[in-house]
Protein backbone atom coordinates (compact mmCIF):
# COMPACT_ATOMS: atom_id res chain seq x y z
CA UNK A 1 0.00 0.00 0.00
CA UNK A 2 3.04 2.26 -0.24
CA UNK A 3 1.61 3.86 -3.36
CA UNK A 4 -1.66 4.71 -1.71
CA UNK A 5 0.00 6.15 1.37
CA UNK A 6 2.39 8.19 -0.77
CA UNK A 7 -0.48 9.53 -2.82
CA UNK A 8 -2.05 10.93 0.33
CA UNK A 9 1.15 12.71 1.36
CA UNK A 10 0.97 16.53 1.22
CA UNK A 11 3.43 16.80 -1.67
CA UNK A 12 1.86 14.09 -3.77
CA UNK A 13 0.61 15.13 -7.23
CA UNK A 14 -2.70 13.41 -6.54
CA UNK A 15 -3.12 15.50 -3.44
CA UNK A 16 -2.07 18.69 -5.22
CA UNK A 17 -4.82 18.21 -7.77
CA UNK A 18 -7.35 18.68 -5.02
CA UNK A 19 -5.47 21.37 -3.09
CA UNK A 20 -3.32 23.88 -4.99
CA UNK A 21 0.15 24.57 -3.58
CA UNK A 22 0.64 27.23 -0.93
CA UNK A 23 1.79 30.56 -2.42
CA UNK A 24 3.88 31.53 0.59
CA UNK A 25 7.56 32.06 -0.29
CA UNK A 26 6.97 31.03 -3.90
CA UNK A 27 6.78 34.36 -5.76
CA UNK A 28 9.82 34.77 -8.01
CA UNK A 29 8.56 37.10 -10.70
CA UNK A 30 6.23 40.05 -10.16
CA UNK A 31 5.10 41.60 -13.43
CA UNK A 32 3.62 45.05 -13.07
CA UNK A 33 1.90 46.95 -15.87
CA UNK A 34 2.54 50.64 -15.18
CA UNK A 35 0.42 51.45 -18.23
CA UNK A 36 -1.17 49.37 -21.00
CA UNK A 37 -0.09 52.00 -23.54
CA UNK A 38 2.55 51.26 -26.14
CA UNK A 39 4.01 53.83 -28.53
CA UNK A 40 4.45 51.11 -31.18
CA UNK A 41 1.98 48.86 -32.95
CA UNK A 42 3.89 45.63 -33.70
CA UNK A 43 1.70 43.31 -35.73
CA UNK A 44 2.38 40.21 -33.61
CA UNK A 45 1.83 41.79 -30.17
CA UNK A 46 -0.23 39.71 -27.72
CA UNK A 47 -1.30 42.65 -25.58
CA UNK A 48 -4.82 44.02 -25.95
CA UNK A 49 -5.69 47.64 -25.15
CA UNK A 50 -2.35 49.11 -26.28
CA UNK A 51 -3.86 52.52 -27.09
CA UNK A 52 -5.08 53.03 -23.55
CA UNK A 53 -2.90 55.73 -21.96
CA UNK A 54 -4.14 55.20 -18.39
CA UNK A 55 -1.46 54.83 -15.74
CA UNK A 56 -1.36 52.73 -12.57
CA UNK A 57 -2.28 54.79 -9.54
CA UNK A 58 0.37 54.60 -6.83
CA UNK A 59 -2.34 53.70 -4.32
CA UNK A 60 -3.05 50.60 -6.41
CA UNK A 61 0.63 49.68 -6.33
CA UNK A 62 0.68 50.26 -2.58
CA UNK A 63 -2.33 47.97 -2.11
CA UNK A 64 -0.53 45.28 -4.10
CA UNK A 65 2.75 45.72 -2.20
CA UNK A 66 1.00 45.59 1.16
CA UNK A 67 -0.70 42.30 0.34
CA UNK A 68 2.31 40.71 -1.35
CA UNK A 69 4.79 41.42 1.42
CA UNK A 70 2.46 41.16 4.41
CA UNK A 71 1.40 37.66 3.38
CA UNK A 72 5.01 36.56 2.77
CA UNK A 73 4.51 35.63 -0.87
CA UNK A 74 8.00 36.43 -2.26
CA UNK A 75 10.92 34.05 -2.29
CA UNK A 76 14.20 35.55 -0.97
CA UNK A 77 15.09 37.02 -4.38
CA UNK A 78 12.15 38.75 -6.00
CA UNK A 79 12.35 40.06 -9.55
CA UNK A 80 10.00 42.90 -10.48
CA UNK A 81 9.45 43.38 -14.21
CA UNK A 82 7.81 46.57 -15.43
CA UNK A 83 6.20 45.44 -18.66
CA UNK A 84 2.95 44.70 -20.55
CA UNK A 85 2.90 48.02 -22.41
CA UNK A 86 5.90 50.26 -23.10
CA UNK A 87 7.28 50.96 -19.61
CA UNK A 88 9.38 53.95 -20.71
CA UNK A 89 6.20 55.73 -21.84
CA UNK A 90 5.70 56.33 -18.10
CA UNK A 91 7.94 59.13 -16.73
CA UNK A 92 10.94 58.47 -14.50
CA UNK A 93 9.33 60.47 -11.67
CA UNK A 94 6.60 57.85 -11.44
CA UNK A 95 9.16 55.06 -11.13
CA UNK A 96 11.07 56.95 -8.43
CA UNK A 97 7.90 56.97 -6.31
CA UNK A 98 7.04 53.38 -7.26
CA UNK A 99 10.51 52.07 -6.34
CA UNK A 100 10.40 53.91 -2.99
CA UNK A 101 6.99 52.51 -2.27
CA UNK A 102 8.03 48.90 -2.93
CA UNK A 103 11.23 49.37 -0.91
CA UNK A 104 9.16 50.67 2.01
CA UNK A 105 7.10 47.47 2.15
CA UNK A 106 9.84 45.00 1.23
CA UNK A 107 11.33 43.21 4.26
CA UNK A 108 15.10 42.95 4.66
CA UNK A 109 14.92 39.21 4.05
CA UNK A 110 13.86 39.81 0.43
CA UNK A 111 16.22 41.15 -2.24
CA UNK A 112 14.29 43.06 -4.82
CA UNK A 113 15.58 43.66 -8.36
CA UNK A 114 13.90 45.96 -10.86
CA UNK A 115 13.81 45.07 -14.53
CA UNK A 116 12.47 46.85 -17.57
CA UNK A 117 11.63 45.23 -20.89
CA UNK A 118 11.43 48.00 -23.48
CA UNK A 119 11.08 48.47 -27.22
CA UNK A 120 14.12 50.74 -26.90
CA UNK A 121 12.72 53.68 -28.84
CA UNK A 122 12.60 56.03 -25.84
CA UNK A 123 15.95 55.14 -24.24
CA UNK A 124 18.15 58.21 -23.89
CA UNK A 125 21.04 59.27 -21.65
CA UNK A 126 18.60 60.31 -18.93
CA UNK A 127 17.08 56.83 -18.80
CA UNK A 128 20.52 55.20 -18.80
CA UNK A 129 21.55 57.29 -15.78
CA UNK A 130 18.29 56.27 -14.10
CA UNK A 131 18.99 52.58 -14.80
CA UNK A 132 22.49 52.94 -13.38
CA UNK A 133 21.39 54.85 -10.30
CA UNK A 134 18.71 52.31 -9.38
CA UNK A 135 20.35 49.07 -10.47
CA UNK A 136 17.64 48.44 -13.06
CA UNK A 137 18.26 45.60 -15.48
CA UNK A 138 17.19 46.24 -19.04
CA UNK A 139 16.01 44.14 -21.93
CA UNK A 140 15.53 45.59 -25.40
CA UNK A 141 13.17 44.10 -27.99
CA UNK A 142 14.79 44.09 -31.42
CA UNK A 143 14.29 41.52 -34.15
CA UNK A 144 17.65 41.74 -35.94
CA UNK A 145 18.77 43.90 -38.86
CA UNK A 146 16.35 46.57 -40.16
CA UNK A 147 15.08 44.47 -43.06
CA UNK A 148 13.76 41.88 -40.58
CA UNK A 149 12.88 44.15 -37.65
CA UNK A 150 10.91 46.73 -39.61
CA UNK A 151 8.61 44.14 -41.17
CA UNK A 152 6.72 43.74 -37.90
CA UNK A 153 7.86 46.30 -35.36
CA UNK A 154 6.20 49.45 -36.68
CA UNK A 155 4.58 52.65 -35.45
CA UNK A 156 0.86 53.38 -35.65
CA UNK A 157 1.51 55.45 -38.77
CA UNK A 158 3.21 52.38 -40.26
CA UNK A 159 6.85 53.44 -40.12
CA UNK A 160 9.72 51.12 -39.24
CA UNK A 161 11.35 51.60 -35.84
CA UNK A 162 14.79 50.01 -36.24
CA UNK A 163 16.76 53.26 -36.53
CA UNK A 164 15.14 54.63 -33.36
CA UNK A 165 15.83 51.44 -31.40
CA UNK A 166 19.47 51.55 -32.50
CA UNK A 167 19.71 55.12 -31.18
CA UNK A 168 18.45 53.83 -27.82
CA UNK A 169 21.03 51.06 -27.85
CA UNK A 170 23.75 53.61 -28.63
CA UNK A 171 22.72 55.43 -25.44
CA UNK A 172 23.16 52.16 -23.51
CA UNK A 173 26.60 51.76 -25.06
CA UNK A 174 27.55 55.34 -24.16
CA UNK A 175 26.73 54.53 -20.54
CA UNK A 176 28.56 51.20 -20.83
CA UNK A 177 25.32 49.62 -19.65
CA UNK A 178 24.84 45.84 -20.18
CA UNK A 179 21.50 44.69 -21.60
CA UNK A 180 19.82 41.59 -22.90
CA UNK A 181 17.83 41.34 -26.11
CA UNK A 182 14.54 39.67 -26.95
CA UNK A 183 14.23 38.82 -30.62
CA UNK A 184 10.93 37.50 -31.96
CA UNK A 185 11.46 34.85 -34.62
CA UNK A 186 9.00 34.88 -37.50
CA UNK A 187 9.05 32.49 -40.44
CA UNK A 188 11.30 34.75 -42.48
CA UNK A 189 13.85 35.04 -39.63
CA UNK A 190 14.42 31.29 -39.68
CA UNK A 191 16.10 31.48 -43.08
CA UNK A 192 18.78 33.89 -41.78
CA UNK A 193 20.58 32.42 -38.74
CA UNK A 194 24.00 33.79 -39.71
CA UNK A 195 22.74 37.30 -40.33
CA UNK A 196 20.96 37.26 -36.95
CA UNK A 197 23.92 35.78 -35.06
CA UNK A 198 26.32 38.34 -36.55
CA UNK A 199 23.93 41.20 -35.91
CA UNK A 200 23.43 40.37 -32.23
CA UNK A 201 27.08 39.47 -31.61
CA UNK A 202 28.04 42.90 -32.96
CA UNK A 203 25.27 44.63 -31.02
CA UNK A 204 27.07 43.92 -27.74
CA UNK A 205 24.20 42.18 -25.97
CA UNK A 206 25.10 39.89 -23.08
CA UNK A 207 22.20 37.52 -23.59
CA UNK A 208 20.09 36.81 -26.64
CA UNK A 209 16.58 35.51 -25.98
CA UNK A 210 14.74 34.01 -28.92
CA UNK A 211 10.98 34.23 -28.58
CA UNK A 212 8.85 32.79 -31.34
CA UNK A 213 5.86 34.52 -32.89
CA UNK A 214 3.21 32.88 -30.74
CA UNK A 215 -0.51 32.48 -31.04
CA UNK A 216 -1.78 33.76 -27.73
CA UNK A 217 -4.02 36.39 -26.24
CA UNK A 218 -4.63 39.22 -28.73
CA UNK A 219 -2.36 37.70 -31.41
CA UNK A 220 -4.50 35.14 -33.21
CA UNK A 221 -2.19 34.17 -36.08
CA UNK A 222 1.49 33.45 -36.64
CA UNK A 223 3.71 33.22 -39.68
CA UNK A 224 5.05 30.02 -38.08
CA UNK A 225 1.68 28.27 -37.97
CA UNK A 226 1.01 27.96 -41.73
CA UNK A 227 2.98 24.88 -42.66
CA UNK A 228 4.00 23.36 -39.36
CA UNK A 229 6.30 20.69 -40.82
CA UNK A 230 8.17 23.31 -42.84
CA UNK A 231 8.38 25.59 -39.82
CA UNK A 232 9.72 22.86 -37.58
CA UNK A 233 12.35 21.83 -40.12
CA UNK A 234 13.43 25.45 -40.62
CA UNK A 235 13.48 26.09 -36.88
CA UNK A 236 15.66 23.04 -36.22
CA UNK A 237 18.08 24.15 -38.93
CA UNK A 238 18.09 27.65 -37.50
CA UNK A 239 18.83 26.55 -33.93
CA UNK A 240 21.44 24.05 -35.07
CA UNK A 241 23.23 26.83 -36.90
CA UNK A 242 23.03 29.14 -33.88
CA UNK A 243 24.55 26.37 -31.71
CA UNK A 244 27.25 25.81 -34.31
CA UNK A 245 28.10 29.50 -34.34
CA UNK A 246 28.28 29.55 -30.53
CA UNK A 247 30.61 26.53 -30.61
CA UNK A 248 32.85 27.97 -33.29
CA UNK A 249 33.06 31.28 -31.42
CA UNK A 250 33.70 29.70 -28.02
CA UNK A 251 35.09 26.23 -28.66
CA UNK A 252 32.43 24.34 -26.73
CA UNK A 253 28.73 24.61 -26.06
CA UNK A 254 29.09 23.31 -22.53
CA UNK A 255 32.33 24.84 -21.27
CA UNK A 256 33.04 28.38 -22.23
CA UNK A 257 32.43 31.90 -21.07
CA UNK A 258 31.00 33.42 -24.23
CA UNK A 259 30.50 37.15 -24.63
CA UNK A 260 26.95 36.46 -25.76
CA UNK A 261 24.76 33.69 -24.37
CA UNK A 262 21.61 32.32 -25.98
CA UNK A 263 18.80 31.76 -23.48
CA UNK A 264 17.22 28.77 -25.22
CA UNK A 265 20.50 26.85 -25.30
CA UNK A 266 21.39 27.83 -21.74
CA UNK A 267 18.01 26.61 -20.51
CA UNK A 268 18.65 23.08 -21.76
CA UNK A 269 22.20 23.01 -20.36
CA UNK A 270 20.99 24.30 -17.01
CA UNK A 271 18.17 21.77 -16.86
CA UNK A 272 20.64 18.94 -17.55
CA UNK A 273 23.00 20.19 -14.83
CA UNK A 274 20.29 20.77 -12.25
CA UNK A 275 20.44 18.28 -9.36
CA UNK A 276 16.66 17.98 -9.52
CA UNK A 277 16.58 16.93 -13.18
CA UNK A 278 14.05 14.16 -13.66
CA UNK A 279 12.34 14.73 -10.34
CA UNK A 280 10.43 17.95 -10.94
CA UNK A 281 6.80 18.38 -11.92
CA UNK A 282 5.53 21.79 -12.97
CA UNK A 283 7.27 25.05 -13.80
CA UNK A 284 6.91 28.71 -12.94
CA UNK A 285 4.15 29.22 -15.50
CA UNK A 286 1.96 26.26 -14.62
CA UNK A 287 2.28 26.27 -10.82
CA UNK A 288 0.37 29.03 -9.02
CA UNK A 289 2.06 31.78 -7.03
CA UNK A 290 5.48 31.74 -8.70
CA UNK A 291 4.58 34.46 -11.19
CA UNK A 292 2.13 37.21 -10.31
CA UNK A 293 0.93 39.70 -12.92
CA UNK A 294 -0.76 42.93 -11.91
CA UNK A 295 -2.55 45.16 -14.43
CA UNK A 296 -2.54 48.96 -14.23
CA UNK A 297 -6.00 48.96 -12.64
CA UNK A 298 -5.13 46.36 -9.96
CA UNK A 299 -6.48 43.19 -11.60
CA UNK A 300 -4.20 40.26 -10.95
CA UNK A 301 -3.55 36.76 -12.27
CA UNK A 302 -1.02 34.02 -11.78
CA UNK A 303 0.34 31.27 -14.10
CA UNK A 304 1.48 32.57 -17.55
CA UNK A 305 1.60 36.38 -17.55
CA UNK A 306 -0.20 36.51 -20.92
CA UNK A 307 -3.35 35.16 -19.24
CA UNK A 308 -4.05 38.44 -17.43
CA UNK A 309 -7.23 39.93 -18.89
CA UNK A 310 -7.98 36.87 -21.02
CA UNK A 311 -10.96 34.52 -20.85
CA UNK A 312 -11.12 30.80 -21.50
CA UNK A 313 -14.03 28.64 -22.62
CA UNK A 314 -15.75 27.18 -19.58
CA UNK A 315 -13.56 29.18 -17.20
CA UNK A 316 -14.56 32.74 -18.01
CA UNK A 317 -12.31 35.64 -17.06
CA UNK A 318 -8.90 34.37 -15.93
CA UNK A 319 -8.34 37.37 -13.68
CA UNK A 320 -8.31 36.16 -10.07
CA UNK A 321 -9.33 39.44 -8.49
CA UNK A 322 -8.29 43.03 -7.90
CA UNK A 323 -5.63 44.00 -5.36
CA UNK A 324 -7.86 46.89 -4.24
CA UNK A 325 -10.67 44.74 -2.91
CA UNK A 326 -9.96 41.01 -3.20
CA UNK A 327 -7.74 38.70 -1.17
CA UNK A 328 -4.24 38.09 -2.51
CA UNK A 329 -3.47 35.22 -2.74
CA UNK A 330 -6.98 34.10 -3.63
CA UNK A 331 -8.77 32.04 -1.00
CA UNK A 332 -8.00 28.32 -1.31
CA UNK A 333 -11.67 27.59 -2.06
CA UNK A 334 -12.06 30.35 -4.68
CA UNK A 335 -14.03 28.60 -7.42
CA UNK A 336 -12.45 30.50 -10.36
CA UNK A 337 -8.95 29.77 -9.09
CA UNK A 338 -9.66 26.10 -8.42
CA UNK A 339 -11.15 25.58 -11.90
CA UNK A 340 -8.04 27.10 -13.52
CA UNK A 341 -5.71 25.08 -11.33
CA UNK A 342 -7.57 21.84 -11.93
CA UNK A 343 -7.42 22.20 -15.74
CA UNK A 344 -3.80 23.35 -15.74
CA UNK A 345 -2.79 20.51 -13.44
CA UNK A 346 -4.53 18.04 -15.73
CA UNK A 347 -2.49 19.50 -18.60
CA UNK A 348 0.73 18.94 -16.66
CA UNK A 349 -0.29 15.37 -15.88
CA UNK A 350 -1.15 14.69 -19.52
CA UNK A 351 2.26 16.01 -20.57
CA UNK A 352 3.99 13.93 -17.91
CA UNK A 353 2.29 10.77 -19.08
CA UNK A 354 2.98 11.23 -22.75
CA UNK A 355 6.15 13.20 -23.44
CA UNK A 356 9.82 12.21 -23.31
CA UNK A 357 10.79 15.89 -23.07
CA UNK A 358 8.83 16.38 -19.84
CA UNK A 359 11.98 16.66 -17.72
CA UNK A 360 12.93 19.79 -19.65
CA UNK A 361 9.64 21.67 -19.78
CA UNK A 362 7.77 20.06 -16.86
CA UNK A 363 4.30 20.56 -18.26
CA UNK A 364 4.50 23.47 -20.69
CA UNK A 365 2.97 26.92 -20.79
CA UNK A 366 -0.76 27.36 -20.05
CA UNK A 367 -0.97 30.49 -22.24
CA UNK A 368 0.28 28.61 -25.29
CA UNK A 369 -1.98 25.64 -24.63
CA UNK A 370 -4.95 27.97 -24.34
CA UNK A 371 -3.95 30.11 -27.34
CA UNK A 372 -3.37 27.15 -29.65
CA UNK A 373 -5.92 24.59 -28.46
CA UNK A 374 -8.49 26.63 -26.51
CA UNK A 375 -7.89 24.50 -23.40
CA UNK A 376 -5.47 24.14 -20.50
CA UNK A 377 -5.60 20.37 -20.15
CA UNK A 378 -3.98 19.63 -23.51
CA UNK A 379 -0.38 18.68 -24.27
CA UNK A 380 1.65 19.45 -27.38
CA UNK A 381 1.67 22.91 -28.93
CA UNK A 382 3.65 24.46 -31.74
CA UNK A 383 5.36 26.51 -29.04
CA UNK A 384 6.62 23.37 -27.30
CA UNK A 385 7.52 21.58 -30.54
CA UNK A 386 9.82 24.46 -31.40
CA UNK A 387 11.10 26.02 -28.20
CA UNK A 388 11.36 22.81 -26.17
CA UNK A 389 11.56 19.70 -28.31
CA UNK A 390 13.55 21.08 -31.25
CA UNK A 391 15.97 23.04 -29.05
CA UNK A 392 16.49 20.05 -26.76
CA UNK A 393 17.30 17.84 -29.76
CA UNK A 394 19.77 20.41 -31.10
CA UNK A 395 21.58 20.81 -27.78
CA UNK A 396 21.69 17.06 -27.11
CA UNK A 397 23.12 16.46 -30.60
CA UNK A 398 25.82 19.10 -30.07
CA UNK A 399 26.76 17.67 -26.66
CA UNK A 400 26.74 14.12 -28.00
CA UNK A 401 29.20 15.22 -30.67
CA UNK A 402 31.47 17.21 -28.33
CA UNK A 403 31.60 15.26 -25.06
CA UNK A 404 33.74 12.18 -24.44
CA UNK A 405 31.86 8.87 -24.24
CA UNK A 406 31.24 7.18 -20.92
CA UNK A 407 33.40 4.16 -20.08
CA UNK A 408 31.86 0.90 -21.34
CA UNK A 409 30.94 -0.37 -17.87
CA UNK A 410 29.03 2.77 -16.87
CA UNK A 411 25.31 2.60 -17.59
CA UNK A 412 23.52 5.73 -16.38
CA UNK A 413 20.14 5.24 -14.76
CA UNK A 414 17.46 7.17 -16.62
CA UNK A 415 15.94 9.81 -14.44
CA UNK A 416 12.27 10.33 -14.95
CA UNK A 417 9.70 11.77 -12.67
CA UNK A 418 9.69 9.77 -9.43
CA UNK A 419 6.69 7.51 -9.13
CA UNK A 420 4.24 7.67 -6.28
CA UNK A 421 6.20 5.11 -4.29
CA UNK A 422 9.32 7.25 -4.38
CA UNK A 423 11.20 5.00 -6.79
CA UNK A 424 12.28 5.70 -10.29
CA UNK A 425 9.91 3.54 -12.28
CA UNK A 426 11.98 3.43 -15.40
CA UNK A 427 14.98 2.29 -13.46
CA UNK A 428 12.95 -0.37 -11.70
CA UNK A 429 11.82 -1.74 -15.01
CA UNK A 430 15.29 -2.39 -16.29
Amino acid at each position, binding site marked *: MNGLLASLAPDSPARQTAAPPDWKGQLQLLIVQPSPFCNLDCDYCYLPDRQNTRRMDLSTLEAAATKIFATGLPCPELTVVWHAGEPLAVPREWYLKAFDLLAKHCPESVTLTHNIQTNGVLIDDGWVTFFQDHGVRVGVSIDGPDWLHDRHRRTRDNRGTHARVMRGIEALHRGDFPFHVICVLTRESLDHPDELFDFFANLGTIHLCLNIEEIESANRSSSLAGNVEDTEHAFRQFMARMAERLCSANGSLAHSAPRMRIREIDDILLALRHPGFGQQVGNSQNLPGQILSIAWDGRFATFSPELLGQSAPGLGDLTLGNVLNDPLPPLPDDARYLRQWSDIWQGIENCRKSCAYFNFCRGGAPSNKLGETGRFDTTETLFCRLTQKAVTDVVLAALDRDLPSLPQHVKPKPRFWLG*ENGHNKMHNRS
Partner: protein
Amino acid sequence: MNTFKLTSSKRCTEISKRLFGLLALIGLLPAPAVEAAINIPLIQRTEDIRQRLLDADKANTKSHPQQQGPDKNENLASGGWYNFPNFPNWGKWRDWRNY
Protein backbone atom coordinates in the same frame (compact mmCIF):
# COMPACT_ATOMS: atom_id res chain seq x y z
CA MET B 1 -14.76 -12.65 -15.79
CA ASN B 2 -16.14 -14.24 -12.66
CA THR B 3 -13.56 -13.41 -10.02
CA PHE B 4 -14.78 -16.06 -7.61
CA LYS B 5 -14.12 -18.93 -10.00
CA LEU B 6 -10.41 -18.12 -10.07
CA THR B 7 -7.81 -19.67 -7.80
CA SER B 8 -7.22 -17.93 -4.52
CA SER B 9 -4.00 -16.23 -5.62
CA LYS B 10 -5.42 -14.99 -8.91
CA ARG B 11 -8.55 -13.87 -7.11
CA CYS B 12 -6.49 -11.69 -4.77
CA THR B 13 -4.64 -10.19 -7.72
CA GLU B 14 -7.88 -9.45 -9.53
CA ILE B 15 -9.49 -7.85 -6.49
CA SER B 16 -6.36 -5.74 -5.87
CA LYS B 17 -6.39 -4.54 -9.47
CA ARG B 18 -10.02 -3.54 -9.24
CA LEU B 19 -9.47 -1.82 -5.90
CA PHE B 20 -6.53 0.18 -7.23
CA GLY B 21 -8.44 0.94 -10.42
CA LEU B 22 -11.26 2.33 -8.32
CA LEU B 23 -8.85 4.43 -6.24
CA ALA B 24 -7.21 5.77 -9.39
CA LEU B 25 -10.65 6.54 -10.80
CA ILE B 26 -11.64 8.66 -7.80
CA GLY B 27 -8.29 10.44 -7.86
CA LEU B 28 -6.58 8.89 -4.86
CA LEU B 29 -3.83 7.31 -6.94
CA PRO B 30 -1.72 9.15 -9.49
CA ALA B 31 -1.51 7.74 -13.00
CA PRO B 32 1.47 5.53 -13.87
CA ALA B 33 4.66 7.57 -14.01
CA VAL B 34 5.69 6.44 -17.42
CA GLU B 35 3.39 5.25 -20.15
CA ALA B 36 4.10 3.29 -23.27
CA ALA B 37 3.70 6.33 -25.51
CA ILE B 38 6.89 7.88 -24.16
CA ASN B 39 10.01 7.70 -26.23
CA ILE B 40 12.16 5.61 -23.86
CA PRO B 41 15.35 5.64 -26.03
CA LEU B 42 15.32 9.44 -25.97
CA ILE B 43 15.12 9.44 -22.18
CA GLN B 44 18.00 6.97 -21.98
CA ARG B 45 20.08 8.96 -24.47
CA THR B 46 19.37 12.12 -22.49
CA GLU B 47 20.67 10.49 -19.31
CA ASP B 48 23.77 9.23 -21.09
CA ILE B 49 24.57 12.72 -22.37
CA ARG B 50 23.71 14.26 -19.02
CA GLN B 51 26.16 11.97 -17.25
CA ARG B 52 28.85 12.82 -19.78
CA LEU B 53 28.17 16.53 -19.29
CA LEU B 54 28.46 16.24 -15.51
CA ASP B 55 31.69 14.23 -15.84
CA ALA B 56 33.09 16.82 -18.22
CA ASP B 57 32.07 19.58 -15.78
CA LYS B 58 34.07 17.85 -13.05
CA ALA B 59 37.10 17.39 -15.28
CA ASN B 60 36.82 20.96 -16.47
CA THR B 61 36.68 22.29 -12.92
CA LYS B 62 39.98 20.55 -12.18
CA SER B 63 41.75 21.88 -15.25
CA HIS B 64 40.04 25.27 -15.62
CA PRO B 65 38.35 26.18 -12.34
CA GLN B 66 37.52 29.63 -13.63
CA GLN B 67 35.54 28.21 -16.52
CA GLN B 68 33.49 25.50 -14.95
CA GLY B 69 29.86 25.36 -16.13
CA PRO B 70 27.32 28.10 -15.62
CA ASP B 71 27.42 28.10 -11.82
CA LYS B 72 30.78 29.83 -12.00
CA ASN B 73 29.33 32.55 -14.16
CA GLU B 74 28.95 35.71 -12.19
CA ASN B 75 25.40 36.43 -13.33
CA LEU B 76 24.17 32.92 -12.77
CA ALA B 77 25.87 32.33 -9.45
CA SER B 78 24.07 35.30 -7.96
CA GLY B 79 20.85 34.66 -9.77
CA GLY B 80 19.58 31.55 -8.07
CA TRP B 81 19.70 29.00 -10.86
CA TYR B 82 20.59 26.50 -8.21
CA ASN B 83 17.74 27.30 -5.88
CA PHE B 84 17.20 23.58 -5.55
CA PRO B 85 14.70 22.00 -5.15
CA ASN B 86 12.92 24.58 -7.28
CA PHE B 87 13.87 25.25 -10.86
CA PRO B 88 14.11 28.90 -11.75
CA ASN B 89 11.51 30.63 -13.84
CA TRP B 90 11.00 28.89 -17.05
CA GLY B 91 10.91 29.65 -20.73
CA LYS B 92 10.45 33.12 -22.01
CA TRP B 93 9.53 34.43 -18.57
CA ARG B 94 12.84 33.26 -17.20
CA ASP B 95 14.13 35.29 -14.34
CA TRP B 96 15.42 38.63 -15.60
CA ARG B 97 18.18 38.56 -12.99
CA ASN B 98 19.97 35.97 -15.06
CA TYR B 99 20.29 37.94 -18.25
